[in-house]
């Protein structure tokens, strides 16, 4: 089972932009070590969340026909911590897309619970993450990879379907 670092896609504009949320909970494994008694979501996992969000946008743009892998973190700046109880909002837009790969520009915002639960907090931008993705099928360079689309496997399919997005991905794919 792949670790999912997003819970739901809240907006998807085909070939243009996407937004997803991640609810940070205190029961997550990495908090045992990062840090004991002071849980802070690791920056690399926030980048992973953006990679999954933007990767879905890239995959969706190509009708999930290509295996999309993260090729490069072009830029990543995070200015605040995410802690249990926070909600991370990932927003990404497609900057380039062609047969070889794609690039995206994204922002990360934080929604923190306030004292009054009836007043949801305004998203506060805490960083930006720009990524480059490669279409693996076009860039194998002689390397061997599984024949099936191991990126858009069942766990991504579940997130997409629960977010009301049709994937067209065949069932029975192995993660």
């Amino acid at each position, binding site marked *: 089972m792949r670790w999912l670092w997003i819970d739901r896609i809240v907006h998807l504009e085909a070939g243009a932009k996407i937004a997803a949320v991640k609810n940070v909970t205190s029961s997550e494994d990495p908090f045992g070590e990062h840090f004991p008694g002071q849980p802070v979501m690791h920056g690399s996992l926030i980048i992973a969340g953006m990679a999954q969000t933007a990767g879905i946008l890239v995959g969706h743009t190509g009708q999930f026909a290509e295996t999309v892998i993260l*090729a490069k973190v072009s830029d990543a700046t995070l200015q605040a911590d995410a802690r249990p109880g926070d909600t991370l909002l990932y927003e990404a837009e497609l900057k*380039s897309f*062609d*047969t*070889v*790969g794609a*690039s995206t520009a994204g922002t990360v915002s934080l929604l923190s619970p306030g004292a009054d639960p009836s007043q949801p907090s305004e998203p506060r931008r805490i960083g930006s993450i720009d990524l*480059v993705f*490669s279409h693996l099928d076009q860039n194998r*360079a002689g390397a061997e990879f599984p024949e099936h689309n191991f990126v858009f496997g069942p766990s991504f399919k579940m997130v997409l379907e629960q977010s009301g997005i049709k994937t067209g991905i065949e069932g029975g794919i192995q993660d």
Partner: protein
Amino acid sequence: MTHDEVYAKVSEVLMDALAVDEDEVTPEAPLTGALGAESIDFLDIVFKLEQAFGFKIAQGELFPDNVTQDPEFVQGGKLTPKGLEALRERLPHADFSKLDADPSVAKVGEIFTVSALVRFCESKLQAAG
């Protein structure tokens, strides 16, 4: 667009894509050597050039693939005369002076200098009118 304007835009793209300083981007600097570009950076550079200049770069147009994997073009770790010719034909903007002297496959990256990128962009802009 003047030569200096094209050069400035290309420099900006390279500083952004390769996280290098302005003084490292010199006309003769090869992307893979002095500027530390790796294969995936070329994809990033292509995307950033497209955004900076507003033209489209087809797959293999700027950085051709398959030439160095073709046994007809490479033998014993060196480009054959046919391989060199194929590369020259596909990359008229590149600087072949060093590769002509030593046609090792490892040296292929050195033909992609900052000047070569600028010439490529100028030719694309000219073609677009």
